[in-house]
C-alpha cells in the first residue's frame, strides 16, 4: 500500500513540472473550447486534437492528452446542459436534468455541479486505482459472457427510469435502439444487416448522427414550434454558483455516483458506458420525490457526471491489464499511448512505472486544472444562452452539420442526422423519449456478442443466465426492478411526473 502511494507520488513528481503543467492547461483549454461546440462530442474532439500531441515527449504528450480528454468531456457536458446536445452516450443523461436546470436559469449551478462532481470522482477514483488497482483487475475475470448479458439487461431495464411516461413505450424505445445498433456488418458472420445495400451503412450507424438528430435537431424543431419560431426563452439567471441547499442535495449523489461509476468502470467492455445511466437510475429510485427528476434535479446532474468520470478513470484498470477499451475515446487514448511506446498489458505497471503512474497522475492533474480553468468560464458559457434563438439555432445547425460531416467526411452521415431528426421529432410527439433508445443503441453490439458467446459456451442452454451466481442475482435484480416499475402504485407516482412543462 505504501509502495503504491509512493508510486503515485512518483507519477506526480513526473507530471508536475512547469512544462507539463502548461501542456495540461493548454490541452484542457483547447479541449474545452472545441468540445463545447455543439456537434463535436468528446470523441470527435479528442480525435481532431490528437495530432497536437504527436511531437511531444511521451509524458508530456500523455499529460496534454489528459487535459484534452477532460476538457472535451467537460465541454461536452456543457453543450448537453446549455443546448441539450449530447456528444457521447454519458451526456445523454446529463441532458435530462442539466438542460432542465438551464431552462430554469440555473445553468451556472448545473455547470459548476458537473465540474465539481467530476473532480471529486476523479480524485477518489485515482486514489482507488493507486491503492487497489491491481487486485481489482481480478474482479473483471469473474465476469463471463453470461454475467455481462445479465448486467446489460439490468442496465437496459434501469434505463426505463430515464423516461417519464409509459414503461412499455420506454422498453420499445430500448428495443428500437437495439435494432438500430444492428445496422451494418455482423462481426461474427460478416453478414450485412439492415443496410439496404448501401455501402455507407456497412460500418453501422455512428453515435453522433443518431444523437445529434434525435436530441439536437428534434429539440430545435420542437422548441421553434412551441414558441412560434421565437425559441424557448430561459428563465433569468438566478445564480451562477450552487447554494448551500444545492450542495447538500448534490454531495450524497456525487458519492453514490462515484462508487457506482468506479464499480462499473472496472468491468471491461460495457461497464463504463453504463456508469452514468446506472447512477441516474439509482438516484431516481432513491429519491424521496422521483418526479423531480427530468425537471431539473441537481442530483440528476451530479450523480451521472461523477459516475462518468469515475468510470472513465476506473476503466484504466481493465484497459491496461486486459487491453480492452470500453468506448471510442478510450480506444483513441490507447492508440495515442501505443504511439508513445506504451503497450497496454499486464506488464505495464512493472516495466514502465514512471509512464504508468505519470499517466495516472496526469489524469488527476487534468481534473484539477480543468476545474480551475472552467469555474471562471461558467459565466461566459451561461451568457451564450442570452443569444437570441433566431441567431443561436442556425449556429447550432451549422456546428451539428459540420461535426457530423467531419466524422468520416461523409455527407451520408449528415443525411442520416436529418432523418433521425425527423424520427426524433415524431417520437417526441408520440411521447416516446429517446434517452432509453440511446442506451439500447450503445449496448446493442455488446449484448448480442455476449449473448451469443454465453450460449455457445453453455452449449445452447439458456438457463446458464439464471444458474451462474453473479449472473443470476443480476438477472433477479433486473426482474425485481421491472416488477416494481409496472406495479400500479409505482406507476401512479411515475405518472405524476408525466408533465412536460
Amino acid at each position: 500500500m505504501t509502495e503504491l502511494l509512493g508510486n503515485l507520488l512518483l507519477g506526480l513528481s513526473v507530471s508536475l513540472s512547469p512544462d507539463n503543467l502548461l501542456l495540461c492547461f493548454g490541452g484542457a483549454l483547447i479541449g474545452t473550447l472545441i468540445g463545447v461546440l455543439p456537434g463535436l462530442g468528446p470523441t470527435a474532439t479528442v480525435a481532431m486534437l490528437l495530432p497536437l500531441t504527436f511531437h511531444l515527449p511521451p509524458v508530456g504528450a500523455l499529460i496534454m492528452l489528459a487535459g484534452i480528454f477532460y476538457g472535451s468531456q467537460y465541454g461536452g457536458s456543457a453543450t448537453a446542459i446549455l443546448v441539450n446536445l449530447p456528444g457521447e452516450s454519458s451526456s445523454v443523461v446529463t441532458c435530462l436534468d442539466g438542460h432542465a436546470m438551464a431552462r430554469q436559469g440555473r445553468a451556472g449551478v448545473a455547470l459548476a455541479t458537473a465540474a465539481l462532481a467530476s473532480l471529486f470522482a476523479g480524485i477518489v477514483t485515482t486514489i482507488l486505482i493507486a491503492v487497489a488497482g491491481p487486485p481489482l483487475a481480478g474482479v473483471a475475470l469473474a465476469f463471463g459472457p453470461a454475467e455481462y448479458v445479465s448486467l446489460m439487461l439490468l442496465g437496459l431495464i434501469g434505463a426505463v427510469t430515464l423516461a417519464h411516461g409509459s414503461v412499455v413505450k420506454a422498453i420499445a424505445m430500448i428495443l428500437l435502439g437495439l435494432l438500430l445498433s444492428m445496422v451494418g456488418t455482423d462481426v461474427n458472420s460478416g453478414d450485412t444487416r439492415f443496410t439496404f445495400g448501401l455501402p455507407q451503412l456497412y460500418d453501422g450507424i455512428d453515435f453522433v448522427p443518431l444523437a445529434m438528430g434525435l436530441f439536437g435537431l428534434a429539440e430545435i424543431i420542437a422548441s421553434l414550434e412551441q414558441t412560434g419560431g421565437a425559441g424557448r426563452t430561459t428563465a433569468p439567471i438566478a445564480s451562477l454558483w450552487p447554494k448551500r441547499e444545492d450542495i447538500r442535495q448534490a454531495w450524497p449523489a456525487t458519492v453514490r455516483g462515484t462508487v457506482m461509476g468506479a464499480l462499473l468502470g472496472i468491468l471491461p467492455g460495457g461497464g463504463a458506458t453504463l456508469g452514468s445511466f446506472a447512477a441516474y437510475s439509482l438516484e431516481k429510485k432513491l429519491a424521496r420525490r422521483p418526479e423531480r427528476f427530468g425537471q431539473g434535479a441537481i442530483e440528476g446532474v451530479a450523480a451521472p457526471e461523477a459516475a462518468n468520470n469515475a468510470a472513465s478513470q476506473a476503466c484504466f484498470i481493465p484497459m491496461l491489464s486486459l487491453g480492452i477499451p470500453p468506448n471510442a475515446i478510450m480506444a483513441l487514448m490507447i492508440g495515442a499511448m501505443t504511439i508513445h511506446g506504451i503497450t497496454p498489458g499486464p506488464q505495464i505497471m512493472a516495466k514502465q512505472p514512471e509512464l504508468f503512474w505519470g499517466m495516472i497522475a496526469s489524469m488527476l492533474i487534468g481534473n484539477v486544472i480543468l476545474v480551475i480553468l472552467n469555474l471562471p468560464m461558467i459565466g461566459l458559457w451561461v451568457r451564450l444562452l442570452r443569444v437570441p434563438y433566431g441567431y443561436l439555432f442556425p449556429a447550432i445547425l451549422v456546428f451539428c452539420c459540420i461535426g457530423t460531416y467531419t466524422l468520416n467526411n461523409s455527407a451520408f452521415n449528415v443525411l442520416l442526422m436529418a432523418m433521425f431528426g425527423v424520427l426524433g421529432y415524431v417520437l417526441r410527439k408520440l411521447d416516446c423519449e429517446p434517452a432509453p433508445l440511446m442506451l439500447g443503441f450503445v449496448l446493442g453490439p455488446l449484448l448480442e456478442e455476449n449473448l451469443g458467446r454465453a450460449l455457445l459456451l453453455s452449449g445452447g442452454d439458456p438457463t446458464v443466465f439464471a444458474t451462474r451466481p453473479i449472473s443470476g442475482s443480476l438477472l433477479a435484480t433486473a426482474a425485481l426492478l421491472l416488477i416494481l416499475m409496472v406495479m400500479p402504485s409505482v406507476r401512479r407516482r411515475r405518472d405524476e411526473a408525466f408533465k412536460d412543462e
Partner: protein
Amino acid sequence: MPSLPFSDLRPPSSATAPPRGPSTAPRGTARGALENTLPTIMDGEAAPLQEPVRAPQDLAAGLLIAAFGLAALWLGRDWPTGTLAYVQSGFFPRMIGLLMVLAGAVVTGRSLLAHGAGLPAWGWRPLLGVTAAVLAFAGTVELLGLVPAVLILVGLGNLAGQPLRPVPLAFLGGTLAAGCVALFVWGLGLPLRVWP
C-alpha cells in the same frame, strides 16, 4: 435517396420551402393538446375529441413501434438464425423484432381500452425547414464546398423560425461561414473543401 426503415416518416418534398402551417401555435400546445386541427401523417386521424379511439397518441405510437418490429422481421426473413448453441446473424434481429411487435401490440391494445392524450399538432414549418436545411447542407458540402453549404444551411434554416431580416441574416451567415473556415480548415486542419 436511400430508403431506410423510417423513410416513410420523412416529410414529403423536403427540399421545397416549408409551407406556412399552423406552426405558430401558442405556447404549451405540444403535448396532449386538444386544439388539434391537423390531420397527421400516422393514420390520418383528426379531431381526437370525436374519435372512437380513446388514446390516439398511444395508438399511433403502438402502430409505429409494431411497424418497426414488423419491418425488422420482414427484412431479416431470410437471415440464418442458427441454433441456441450456435447463434447466427438472424437470431438477434428476429428476437428484437418479435419483442417490438409485442410491445407495439401492448401499446396499441391499451390505447383502445384506456383514455389518453390526443394526437398533438405538428409543427410542419420548423420540421420541414430544419430538415430541408440539413439535407441541403448534405447535398452541397461536397459539391460546392463549405462556405456555400453553410450559407445555404443558414438561409434555409432561417425559414424554420421567425425569419431574420436580410442584413442580420447576411451577417450571421457570413460570420458563421468565416468562423467555420477559420476554425475547422485553418485551425484544426480538417480536409474540407472550402469553395466550389
